[in-house]
């Protein structure tokens, strides 16, 4: 029983990072109709922006988080301006390929600078076991989870409770009608990409600190999962994406713990095929594209 709870907790912690990346992915897809395959690599850039910040400025956790978010956000801004904006309204697949090209450039460009192997990351927080009713959990794991929830909470508040968030939802529903009602689609699109990038940057610093290492190809670990989570959940409900991401984390942890770590991905993909067979619009429904 303790083992089961422990595994579920581990799964939730991994799933919370999937959730942050997947929500960013989903926000950009919903608002811009663009599958941003560079998003996982913006995550990676945020991780390294934090790493450089820790070396050059200060290894205070708040400073590193802010620098990670700033680095990722800045690149998101450039990406939106140079690649995504000219391609808006085109076939979804063309933007997928273009952002994939950007992802290839980013990964190999960073590999030139940082090398293709994982590098050490400042741990930022002391590691001490925290006991929650018989289950031991590391303080860094807990911090990672809390930080992800904080970021998701912020994004949820932004989308549900602010003027810009309302405009964002309007664009998701019908971009043309939203524009006719005076929503500045270009500005909202830019804000969305930058916001999603900054969320990824925060999650990346937190993951780097959790595992004590940064890797230029880390995006490949999270990118595919985030993509799948977005499509299983459907992009209509933000909270649905989060729920599916956490669920995927738990399923993975349970399969790893009780069956075999080499089957982890197979189970996830089989579940995916089943869900899509019976609910082609995702579990919680999607906006018409």
């Amino acid at each position: 029983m303790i083992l089961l709870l422990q595994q579920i907790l581990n799964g939730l912690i991994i799933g919370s990072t999937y959730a942050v990346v997947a929500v960013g992915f989903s926000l950009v897809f919903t608002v811009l109709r663009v599958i941003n395959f560079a998003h996982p690599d913006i995550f990676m850039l945020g991780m390294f922006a934090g790493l450089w910040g820790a070396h050059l400025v200060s290894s205070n956790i708040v400073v590193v988080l802010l620098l990670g978010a700033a680095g990722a956000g800045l690149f998101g801004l450039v990406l939106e301006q140079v690649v995504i904006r000219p391609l808006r309204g085109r076939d979804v697949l063309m933007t997928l390929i273009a952002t994939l090209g950007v992802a290839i450039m980013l990964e190999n460009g960073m590999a030139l600078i940082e090398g293709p192997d994982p590098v050490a990351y400042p741990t930022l927080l002391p590691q001490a076991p925290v006991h929650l009713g018989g289950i031991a959990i590391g303080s860094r794991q807990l911090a990672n989870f809390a930080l992800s929830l904080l970021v998701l909470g912020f994004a949820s508040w932004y989308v549900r409770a602010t003027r810009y968030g309302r405009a964002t939802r309007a664009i998701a529903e019908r971009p043309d009608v939203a524009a006719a009602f005076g929503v500045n689609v270009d500005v909202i699109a830019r804000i969305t990409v930058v916001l999603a990038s900054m969320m990824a940057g925060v999650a990346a610093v937190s993951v780097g600190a959790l595992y004590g290492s940064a890797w230029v190809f880390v995006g490949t670990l999270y990118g595919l999962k985030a993509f799948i989570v977005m499509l299983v959940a459907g992009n209509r409900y933000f909270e649905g994406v989060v729920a599916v991401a956490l669920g995927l984390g738990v399923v993975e942890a349970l399969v790893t713990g009780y069956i075999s770590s080499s089957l982890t991905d197979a189970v996830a993909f089989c579940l995916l095929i089943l869900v899509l067979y019976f609910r082609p619009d995702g579990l919680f429904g999607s906006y018409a594209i």
Partner: protein
Amino acid sequence: MVSWGFWQPVIIFSLLNVVITSGLYITALSGQLSMATAALAAIGGYASAVLTTNFDWPFLPAILVACALGAGCGALLALLTIRMRDFILKLTTLAFGEAIGVIAFNIPYLGGANGFSGIPLYTTMPDVVIATAIAIYVAWCFDRSRLGFAARAVRDDPVAAAATGISIAQVRIITFALGTVLVAGGGALSAHYVLFVTPSQMGFYFSLTYIIFLLCGGMQALWGPLLAAMLLTAAPEVLRFTAEFRLILYGGIIVLVVLWRPNGLLPRRAIGAPIMQTPIGSRHE
């Protein structure tokens, strides 16, 4: 400058990718853009590798069995996704590819994570040239056939296609199976040249390279994807003199092609229209 020894593998890989891309083109013509190409190619590779290595089959029958197996897998995938919309279909094929990869990973008979090695070297330059000619001929005939036009109708407007008496299910199953025959055949030939097959080469990112070929070339006409497959396979090798920058340049080329030629390198153009003019019938989603 550079010798035949350098160019020969580059040309062989380029042509093998042309074979696989022509299969993907056939499949995609009916609107079923498969994201499991690498996995389907590797299925062909595994089949042919097992038959020749463990059962001492000759080369040609092994390749034919690999193609037949490909047809079966293609038809199965088409059946699985028959009711799905465009985007979800892509995702399901993606999941299928990844799942096949993980299954191969867990079968010790196929070498598990290390892959299947010790495959005899059979594929030579003439074989590859013949296979490419066959693949291009099949794709070209299909492109102009009744079935090819039916496939385009199903892609562009399934409801209207059904109203004119086209059986959507039949067209989709046949095109997927036919395309996968070429994909699996290309994969089998490639296995007898590289001499090993591993589960890691079935992954999503490998499948995406074929989709890059298809889209950079342009999905409207057969020659675009085939040209893109040749050029983009050779590009990283030809750019080798730029050392570490070659993959960055490769990524850059893809981005520029998409930004400047949004319908691909060689889109279908109106009769008599100049080559650089914006093509007709560009599909928007």
